[in-house]
């Protein structure tokens, strides 16, 4: 197959699959198809990977190219990870919430007023609710009990990587 056509196919399939992922995610969330956000991400990624597979099947009839399939699938999974973080920023990032408040008040806000719109108590309560929803901890007799889960591993990995990037002094 001509290399140029090969590249054009690759990019068009990638763009189409990414668009399909975003589109299906929006439909899943708006239609409340999945209870958990993580499941919605997994479902939309599966749809996009399947779509890429189907499109690639057409091209692989003419060429048996390993690079096309592997790099495409890998890049799509990376895109899904970036997309997950983007969506997560809108959902959980304190910076985005503060920006939103400032956006709604173009004349500006004092730090105290800004904290009135987004108090630390709210940030705290939202995080507790999310931990409970994710099943990382349970609440029994008004006491929170750790159940252990993926967060323990993620926490360890983040700490470890932070140690490598910033060194022991800055941590």
């Amino acid at each position, binding site marked *: 197959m001509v290399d140029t056509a090969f590249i054009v196919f*690759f990019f068009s399939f990638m763009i189409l699959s990414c668009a399909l992922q975003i589109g299906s995610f929006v439909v899943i969330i708006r239609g409340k198809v999945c209870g958990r956000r993580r499941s919605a991400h997994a479902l939309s990624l599966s749809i996009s990977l399947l779509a890429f597979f189907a499109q690639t099947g057409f091209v692989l009839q003419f060429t048996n190219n390993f690079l096309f399939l592997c790099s495409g699938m890998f890049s799509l999974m990376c895109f899904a990870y970036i997309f997950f973080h983007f969506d997560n920023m809108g959902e959980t990032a304190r910076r985005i919430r503060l920006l939103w408040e*400032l956006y709604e008040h173009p004349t500006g806000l004092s730090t105290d007023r800004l904290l009135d719109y987004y108090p630390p108590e709210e940030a705290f309560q939202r995080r507790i609710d999310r931990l409970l929803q994710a099943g990382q901890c349970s609440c029994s007799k008004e006491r929170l009990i750790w159940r252990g889960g993926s967060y323990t591993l993620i926490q360890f990995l983040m700490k470890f990587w932070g140690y490598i*990037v910033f060194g022991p002094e800055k941590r």
Partner: protein
Amino acid sequence: MIDDLTLIFLAFSVSFLSIILHILIWRMCAATPSNRTLIYLLTLFTLMQYVFLVLLYIFSGWELNLKLLPIMLVVSMAIVGCYIASYPAIQANSPTFQIAKLIAESGNKGITQSYLYEQLNTSTLVADRIRDLIKDKLADNISGTMLITRRGRKVARIFILWRTLLKESKGG
């Protein structure tokens, strides 16, 4: 001609080398550079390595199919993008992880929400992020008044649009 597997390996190596270079710079700097600097640096390092590969092809006669370079670039940028997306979680002290740590430390007995709240340094929970906004030039503090910058407005607009599309309210 280099085979497909080597090309994928090369694309991986390029992004990992960019990440290693960034770690070296971060370790050398007294103050941690901003997230914006990280995005620019990693993109620059990755692109520079591809320019180097092209130069190697031109001057040393290295057998590389230049037409496949865009695909390799996509793979490298995808890895770098994943790293950039994960970076804020590494850089900022995540309150969720602080809460998780305190609950885990309380063992089977558990911990009450009010006690947990007292244990956390809540004054920095939101205040630290206000400082980050100023550092990243998304907001300005003009004589005690926080004002959103033009760049901040652009970022805010993207997320407001996204949350509106999902029919969801403010996060946080």
